[in-house]
């Protein structure tokens, strides 16, 4: 766990760089975290992030399939927005915990 100043705000991050408190999130915080991973956030990105925050707050489990059916973008589009690990990256930028794969 580490404290860090992002976009003029002091936030708590876990070892993998995820916000530990989703209330610390703002669009600016998201933009800076994304920049560190080499991604410039667009409106489409923010739509996905807000969808994830809303579903997470409602206690719904998240999956790539679910986001792909959200109407915001399809799975292919999601990979283009967040190359490499769509759900891992998008949840990091959305300020919510890394989705646990429950096998």
């Amino acid at each position: 766990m580490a404290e860090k100043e992002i976009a003029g705000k002091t936030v708590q991050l876990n070892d993998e760089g995820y916000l530990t408190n989703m209330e610390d999130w703002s669009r600016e915080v998201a933009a800076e975290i994304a920049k560190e991973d080499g991604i410039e956030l667009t409106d489409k990105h923010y739509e996905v992030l807000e969808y994830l925050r809303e579903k997470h707050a409602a206690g719904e489990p998240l999956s790539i399939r679910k986001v792909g059916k959200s109407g915001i973008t399809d799975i292919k589009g999601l990979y283009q927005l967040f190359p490499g690990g769509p759900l891992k990256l998008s949840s990091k930028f959305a300020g919510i915990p890394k989705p646990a794969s429950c096998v």
Partner: protein
Amino acid sequence: MIIIILTNSTQGKPLRKFEYANIWISKVDKTRIIKNIKYNLMKKLLILGGGTAGTMMANKLRKALDRDEWEITIVDKHKTHYYQPGFLFIPFGIYNKQDVIKSKSDFFPAGVKVIYQGIDKIVGEKNQVLLEDGKALDYDILIVATGTQTRPDETPGLKDKLWYKDIFDFYTVEGAVALQRHFKSWEGGTLVMAITELPFKCPVAPIEFVCLAEEFFAKKGMRDKVDIKLVTPLPGAFTKPVATKMLSELLKEKNIEVIPDFYIERVDNDKKVLVSYDEKEVPFDTLTIVPLNMGDEMVERSGLGDDLNFIPTDKHTLQSNAFENIFVLGDASNIPTSKAGSVAHFASEILFDNIMSAIEGRPLLAKFDGHANCYIETGHGKGALIDFNYETEPLPGTFPLPGIGPFGLLKNTRINHYGKIMFRWIYWHILLRGKEMPIEADMTMAGKKKVNL
């Protein structure tokens, strides 16, 4: 004053099931029968699905509930019970079809009504289940145990011209038998074991499959002609870090390549490649696939499922989120643990307690901890074992007796392999029949070692 008395229609005895009752209305001192009705005081417990979970519950509950008070009915459209852990061994000729099938009716207890028919849907508001022939079954308590199914049709190109020619699954007896036939004459090339999506039934099975394939082709003297790859949407061989480390090292020793973070979009039959959503490709000569897993379509028709037809369920009490008198056991629920028989078994003990509480109007105090226990066949007569729950990842140690075993957790040993082999007997004779096993439903930390990676 009007008094309504329910009695036996002929002798005034207390009512038992399905007896005709007279409703007497006493007006001052003039008594007359106003209606002769068929009145059923029996309560109804209905179980949908007679697989591992449903059969265990029927056995436990029939022993505990008074036959004059509770009628138990099981509905399932299939008459054959498959020993599903045995499917893994069929492609390699270790088991054959007859080793994994028995009649479902052999395992249903006496005093349980069985209806072999498809289910149309659950109508929770009316406490009713509609069957395919249109008949309605009422229930006081419903247990949904309709499991999960493989859906190869959901991935483009999977169930196409190469299906059961060069592409197989081993989650159905048909697929496992077809693969056995294929392997008998296969001359080698790239063998890809691929997972389409999570969650899927028996999450260690693909790892076991590649290990057994390695042994199979080594013994055939053609290991040098077979390149084995494990393609997974997970970031590594398994989800949890400590087990992933152990299993990755094991696969590396066996010269099996793991291709992580690969999310399959489609299969190109002409080029014989798997294509991911981010346009990576993995070529194959023989592909063994874990198709997308979905809950029963009946769940979708009932409007009770999530986007994969799994039923949102309280992960501790096993009560459905939608209705208080609907409980979900086994693979049919969305609880965040493995879809596996061991989970259904541990959960069945918790569900039994909670159903008894619900019947007696007490709060549901038994809490499931997500306990799973899986033997992992690693080939060449050895096996590993993992034991974990919602909170605790698989850790090394001994099981079930701390410090003694005989089984080693996250260790590759011969005795673990025998555990897996013995399990088939335990499954048919103890587990399905709802008898006590010498393992607690709750996971224990005794015998486990904490690990810092």
